[in-house]
């Protein structure tokens, strides 16, 4: 089975940014994304999942290296200053490269 390497970009950030991030993803041409609800702590304090938008989301996007770079740069510029957010990138192997 042939494998193809793509990039997995994971973003952990405030739940209230979901709508905004999803529209960013579309604008940049990502072909899909996956979100799970999360809680956690970082430089901007503790974020629990107790009510309204008090929790985090954990957003994953698989895409090619170029798009991953562009997305990461955009997120850094647009959100890092004012929102709780971290992101990290990894290589992953996928079966159907045309999907990502």
């Amino acid at each position: 089975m042939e494998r193809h390497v793509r990039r997995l970009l994971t973003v952990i950030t405030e739940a209230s940014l979901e709508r905004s991030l999803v529209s960013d993803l579309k604008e940049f041409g990502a072909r899909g994304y996956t979100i799970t609800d999360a809680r956690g702590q970082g430089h901007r304090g503790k974020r629990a999942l107790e009510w309204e938008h008090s929790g985090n989301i954990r957003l994953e996007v698989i895409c090619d290296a170029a798009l991953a770079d562009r997305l990461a740069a955009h997120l850094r510029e647009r959100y890092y200053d004012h929102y709780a957010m971290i992101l990290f990138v990894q290589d992953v192997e996928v079966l159907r490269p045309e999907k990502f």
Partner: protein
Amino acid sequence: MLAIDPVVLFFVLGVAAGLARAELRLPAAIYDFVSAILLLSIGLKGGMQLATQPVGNLLGDVALVLLLGVLLPLVAFPVLRFAGRLPRADAASLAAHYGSVSVGTFAVAISYATRQGIPYEEYMPLFVVLLEVPAILVGILLARGVSRTTRWGPLAHELFLGKSIVLLLGGLAIGWAAGPAGLEPIAPLFFDLFKGVLALFLLEMGLIASAQLAGALRHGLFLVAFGLVAPLAFSVVGIGFGVLMGLSPGGVMLLAVLAASASYIAAPAAMRTAVPEANPAISLTASLAITFPFNILVGIPLYHRLTELLLNG
């Protein structure tokens, strides 16, 4: 009769459990459920009475209430900016929070009024809706002026399509369309359970508020003082407007409570979108951990007295 409304004791229980870090979590889904029922109940009750009201009579009141919503943040801002020496964004955000309203506080005030047998204009929930948005708009303008970069689209969305507005307005509309007879079949859930559901809501709010309490002092004494003094001052403004509108004493008291209450749902969401550079912890701590407890434990009976004093004095 116990001086304090028993539903408020559930809030105290929640705060105590939270401070003791008890193993007591009510999942967010329950919060959503309970708060949706409260919002719908309040809306339905208000709407039911709206039907009996000639619309013409209300127009003046509507205008005055909107004015109140614009005025309050304009009063708060300079105090926060200059006396409190807060950065512009934070001062504007706090002003928006305190100019807007807390439906939870309003629910406790209604419970208080019922318990004390105080009649009031049943369409007051309409005022809750009217008071929610204007102060937030003013706060945004205070923070950024009429800036070109503000993205009004998402913001309008946040403002007018937030959970509380939709459920309150939806309840009002359904209540208005169905009338008292039409609502009878759903009364067991939305009216008979109201106080029990409010008790659960306050238990949850106690847990949530206690988590914010820790941060309260970290933000300095000024914030604590503001969180206690602003509601007092605003309640007097509310009383003034209530008198101007010719409300009954119960209605005046409820308007005082609304003026005194600070938003912890609509305003935080909107300010996060419109003024991201404001530190959200400051406003939330003040409104949720200081003003909300103060209002439901001390404020409501106090504003009641104040109303009696000023009306009869």
